């Protein structure tokens, strides 16, 4: 095995730092700002405006504030788990990015089980949320955690079904391979529109966004599983969530919108244009739709999305085989 | 139409089944179902009759019942002129009686059961009539007997009714045994049950010259079968059950003991007429004639002294049946059957009228009654029509048929003509005695409040009265005697009508009525004086010739004595033996018990205790907890691995 272990480990550490910084800036901070700005725009108001030009530095200020805040640990909490939970969520969110190709060659690791890896890492988030909800020793947090677990476990299946359809179409699990296949054959949103719809709905639910934001429904559960979290731990939860959301957008771009491919402009620009279009779509949905009830949510997954997805896999298989 | 003949008994049978199953929940508590059944049968019978009127070809339908060795046994039905006449009589008269019963029985607690029995009876009678073989006929015959038992004993809580039912059943059974023997004799000599084959073989002389016990086989068979008829038709000497059978409800008396069941005997003789006719020297026919004559005269004399209205009619029935037998016996096949038909109508009418009277008076005793003509006009007039028909007054039904019988007797056997004439006189006398006691004069009972019966009872009375008036004309000589044209026995020529004889018989009847009027209406000769004048004769007649007592001494007593003796034998000899064995067994059992208790049980108990003790120790191993077992498994695995490793 001709692996140069020290070099590999060094590269991994360096890449992690780069990715973390990138994500903190691009996803969490920019994401929060975008959320507020787009929210303001949709609701015909201004949004943050005073810190920096047009309020651009608002999230930087908020981050600094959060970093300075005290870490409060509730007395009855399970300290170890309480502290570990945000880390699990954040790490799981970051791990997703390992397999996202930004441009030809610009990928941390082109695994041959790429999208399987993505799904596995996405599913890890649940454990952090459940652990955080339990460790807080707070009924709102616990209920939020349970809701989250039920919801995310349920929506993992339609998500996986959407991924499988694409993998069948491309004949590979590697994300780079899928993008290359799209460059050859055209974007999969054309061939796989039902899979795209299913994937988008499931992704929205998987990242706990409106209209599937039951785990953190403010009006019912205060703030859901992170009610008891303060300061940087709270920020880590937020980071994990936004990282996950952006990762979903990036994956959707990769799987259905042709990844980095596009004319004239450099591939990286194309990638970010498409990713932000989908992020905008997520935010648009957030400010447009009301929240579902828990039973409606589960029924949607088990009784509509999953059967439809399985049917679509059947159709895809038939198309590929014959 | 005639192909549907098998449906005729099915209708009442279905009604019976329905009423048995659903009882009071049916319309009219079952009565309407029963009436509907019998009326359906009646309509079908009329249809078949009309068809047969055009084409008098006998119709037969058979099915294979079983094989006796190589001999196929076919059962089936036969519709010919005789059957058609009987069907008409049974169903039409039956319908009237069924309707009448709705009114008569309406307060009875066993109302629906009554109609079930009636329906079953009708079905059995129709089966009997339709049968084309002796087996079916016998089955119907026995079913009729069973129904008569059930109906006579309908008020079974009354000991007299229960006794009467038993008496009827057992007495007719005596006749049935003879009949069964006759059937078997015919089957073993001719190998078939079917009438047609029997008659064909007999006509071809199959039994000619054969003897059994020194007597001609044919005569023996005919007389045996006549034995059944004697029982069923209550002829001397088996007539004693019929008067007692009046314990049943009046419609039953009318239906069974006047119109239909007793007619079965006459029908049987008519059906098997070939046998009687072919017997050497016509000895069998002669027997029939004499038995008929004796019955007719004897019953008529008894009827004169009876005070119970229904008993008068019962004896009258015996007498009239005797007359029919007489007619058949002297060669008057058509005459006998004609009288059977007319008699069914007017006797049913009389019984139903009597029932109406009883219904109103709540007593059977004619001496309690009187002056009912004013209170119950419908009953009076219809009863009067029935009485005139019975007496044989022109133009009522009885005149024509009785006249034919007397005519046949006069020509073939003058001695029996005298008997018939005497009977005729007595008949008119006793029936008008009843009328004068019942309807004229004044009411003798003081605690009775008679009233006219409801329309559902008087309606059938009027219908039957109409029939009694006009039915005779089907045999009227000046209309060409269409009845004779329809139903006759080949080989016997009817005696031509004689106006002189007709006038004579009319005169005899009129004399009877006149005598009754003299004694009971105008009371010129008081009844008391007449009775005293008759003296010992009256005593003899009033006690019914001591026949019941004779039977009691000659048959019942010896049977009872034998039974008593046998019982004693049972109790003291057989029981003693049985007890001896029993005691011996008990003694042995005691011995074995000791061995069982101390040796066998001891061994068994030792085993049981051992198992129980072992279980008590071992049960602590069974904790019911999977983890204990798993630990044991793990340790076991370790032991196995260790032995494998360090061997």
């Amino acid at each position, binding site marked *: 095995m001709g692996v140069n272990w020290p070099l590999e480990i060094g590269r991994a550490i360096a890449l992690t730092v780069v990715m973390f910084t990138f994500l903190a800036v691009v996803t969490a901070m920019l994401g929060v700002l975008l959320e507020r700005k787009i929210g303001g725009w949709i609701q015909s108001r201004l949004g943050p405006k005073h810190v920096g030009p047009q309020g651009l530095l608002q999230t930087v200020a908020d981050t600094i504030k959060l970093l300075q805040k005290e870490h409060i640990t509730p007395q009855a909490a399970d300290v170890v*788990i309480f502290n570990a939970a945000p880390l699990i969520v954040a790490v799981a969110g970051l791990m997703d990015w390992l397999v996202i190709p930004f441009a030809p060659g610009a990928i941390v690791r082109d695994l041959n089980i790429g999208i399987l890896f993505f799904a596995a890492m996405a*599913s890890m988030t*649940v454990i952090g949320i459940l652990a955080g909800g339990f460790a807080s020793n707070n009924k709102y947090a616990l209920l939020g955690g349970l809701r989250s677990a039920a919801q995310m*476990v349920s929506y993992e299946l339609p998500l996986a079904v959407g991924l499988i359809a694409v993998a069948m179409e491309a004949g590979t699990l590697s994300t780079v391979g899928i993008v290359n296949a799209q460059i050859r054959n055209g974007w999969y949103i054309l061939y796989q529109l039902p899979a795209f719809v299913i994937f988008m709905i499931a992704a929205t639910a998987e990242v706990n966004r409106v209209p599937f934001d039951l785990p953190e429904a403010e009006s019912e559960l205060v703030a859901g599983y992170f009610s008891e979290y303060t300061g940087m731990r709270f920020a880590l939860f937020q980071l994990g969530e936004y990282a996950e959301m952006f990762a979903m957008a990036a994956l959707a771009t990769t799987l259905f919108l042709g990844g980095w491919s596009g004319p004239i402009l450099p591939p990286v620009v194309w990638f970010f244009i498409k990713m932000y279009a989908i992020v905008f779509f997520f935010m648009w949905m957030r400010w447009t739709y009301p929240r579902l009830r828990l039973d409606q949510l589960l029924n949607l997954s088990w009784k509509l999305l999953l059967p439809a997805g399985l049917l679509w896999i059947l159709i895809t298989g038939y198309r590929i085989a014959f | 139409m005639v192909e549907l003949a098998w449906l005729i008994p099915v209708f009442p049978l279905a009604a019976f089944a329905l009423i048995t199953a659903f009882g009071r929940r049916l319309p009219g508590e079952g009565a309407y179902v029963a009436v509907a059944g019998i009326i359906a049968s009646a309509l079908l019978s009329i249809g078949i009759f009309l068809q047969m009127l055009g084409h008098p070809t006998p119709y037969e339908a058979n099915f294979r019942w079983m094989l006796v060795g190589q001999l196929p046994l076919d059962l089936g039905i036969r519709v010919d002129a005789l059957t058609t006449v009987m069907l008409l009589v049974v169903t039409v008269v039956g319908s009237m009686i069924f309707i009448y019963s709705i009114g008569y029985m309406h307060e009875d607690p066993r109302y629906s059961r009554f109609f079930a029995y009636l329906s079953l009876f009708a079905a059995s009678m129709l089966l009997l009539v339709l049968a084309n073989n002796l087996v079916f006929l016998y089955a119907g015959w026995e079913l009729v007997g069973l129904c008569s038992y059930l109906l006579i004993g309908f008020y079974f809580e009354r000991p007299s009714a229960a006794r009467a039912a038993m008496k009827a059943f057992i007495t007719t059974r005596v006749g049935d045994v003879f009949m069964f023997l006759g059937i078997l004799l015919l089957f073993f000599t001719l190998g078939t049950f079917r009438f047609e084959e029997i008659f064909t073989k007999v006509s071809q002389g199959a039994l000619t010259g054969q003897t059994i016990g020194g007597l001609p086989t044919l005569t023996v068979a005919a007389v045996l079968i006549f034995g059944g008829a004697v029982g069923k038709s209550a002829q001397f000497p088996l007539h004693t059950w019929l008067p007692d059978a009046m314990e049943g409800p009046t419609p039953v008396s009318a239906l069974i003991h006047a119109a239909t069941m007793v007619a079965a005997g006459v029908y049987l003789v008519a059906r098997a007429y070939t046998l009687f006719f072919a017997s050497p020297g016509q000895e069998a026919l002669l027997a029939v004639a004499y038995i008929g004559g004796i019955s007719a005269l004897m019953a008529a004399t008894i009827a004169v002294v009876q005070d119970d209205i229904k008993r008068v009619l019962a004896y009258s029935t015996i007498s009239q049946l005797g007359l029919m037998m007489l007619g058949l016996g002297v060669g008057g096949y058509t005459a006998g059957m004609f009288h059977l038909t007319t008699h069914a109508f007017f006797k049913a009418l009389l019984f139903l009228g009597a029932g109406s009277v009883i219904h109103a008076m709540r007593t059977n005793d004619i001496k309690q009654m009187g002056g009912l003509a004013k209170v119950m006009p419908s009953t009076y007039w219809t009863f009067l029509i029935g009485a005139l028909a019975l007496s044989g007054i022109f133009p009522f039904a009885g005149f024509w048929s009785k006249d034919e019988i007397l005519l046949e007797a006069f020509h073939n056997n003058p001695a029996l003509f005298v008997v018939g004439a005497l009977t005729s006189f007595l008949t008119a006398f006793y029936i008008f005695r009843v009328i004068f006691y019942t309807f004229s004069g004044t009411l003798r009972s003081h605690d009775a409040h008679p009233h006219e019966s409801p329309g559902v009872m008087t309606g059938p009375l009027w219908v039957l009265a109409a029939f009694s008036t006009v039915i005779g004309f089907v045999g009227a000589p000046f209309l060409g005697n269409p009845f004779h044209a329809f139903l006759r026995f080949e080989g016997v020529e009817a005696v031509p009508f004689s106006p002189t004889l007709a006038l004579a018989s009319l005169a005899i009847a009129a004399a009877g009525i006149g005598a009754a009027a003299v004694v009971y209406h105008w009371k010129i000769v008081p009844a008391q004086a007449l009775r005293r004048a008759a003296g010992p004769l009256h005593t003899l007649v009033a006690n019914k010739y001591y026949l019941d007592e004779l039977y009691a001494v000659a048959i019942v007593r010896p049977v009872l004595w034998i039974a008593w003796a046998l019982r004693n034998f049972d109790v003291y000899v057989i029981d003693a033996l049985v007890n001896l064995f029993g005691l011996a067994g008990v003694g042995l059992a005691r011995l074995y018990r000791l061995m069982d208790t101390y040796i066998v049980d001891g061994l068994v108990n030792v085993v049981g205790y051992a198992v129980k003790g072992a279980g008590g120790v071992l049960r602590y191993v069974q904790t019911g907890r999977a983890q204990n077992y798993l630990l044991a498994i793990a*340790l076991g*695995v370790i032991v196995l*691995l260790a032995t494998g*490793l360090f061997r």
Partner: protein
Amino acid sequence: MGELAAFIILSVITLASAVVVVTSGNIVRSALSLVPTFLGITGLYILLQAEFVAGIQVLIYAGAITVLILFVIMLTEGGTGLRTRQVNEQVPLGMLAAAVLALILIAVFSGTEWPKASGSLPQYTAAPIGEAFLTSAVLIFEITSLVLLVSLMGAIIIARRER
């Protein structure tokens, strides 16, 4: 050298967290410790060049079964906040049995000369595994899917609230 280091690190993670799983008095910690155990095993799979199985291991074990177990714990005892005795009276015997068995197994494994293989695993395992499932192992595949369906329905029927 690096491979050995990775193996040692992964084994230690796996076994240490497995010890927490089986000994912790707090059932929730036990359950959460399953996650590093499974992830360590995943690492071992990757060392064994079974990436596809590793991915499935994370997806099913870490992502689904652990969540399910946590879910049930929180719906039952974990949700009540009660702390009860978690072990039964078999601890000494059980420990003995486990230890002896481990010793015997290690002895057997160390003492056995396993056959040496020739050849190597394919570069990408996902496609051959898929092929195997649809060709030589198709019967196993179908039966497993049937078992999955039956147990799915069974679980629903058992867990459903009876009326």
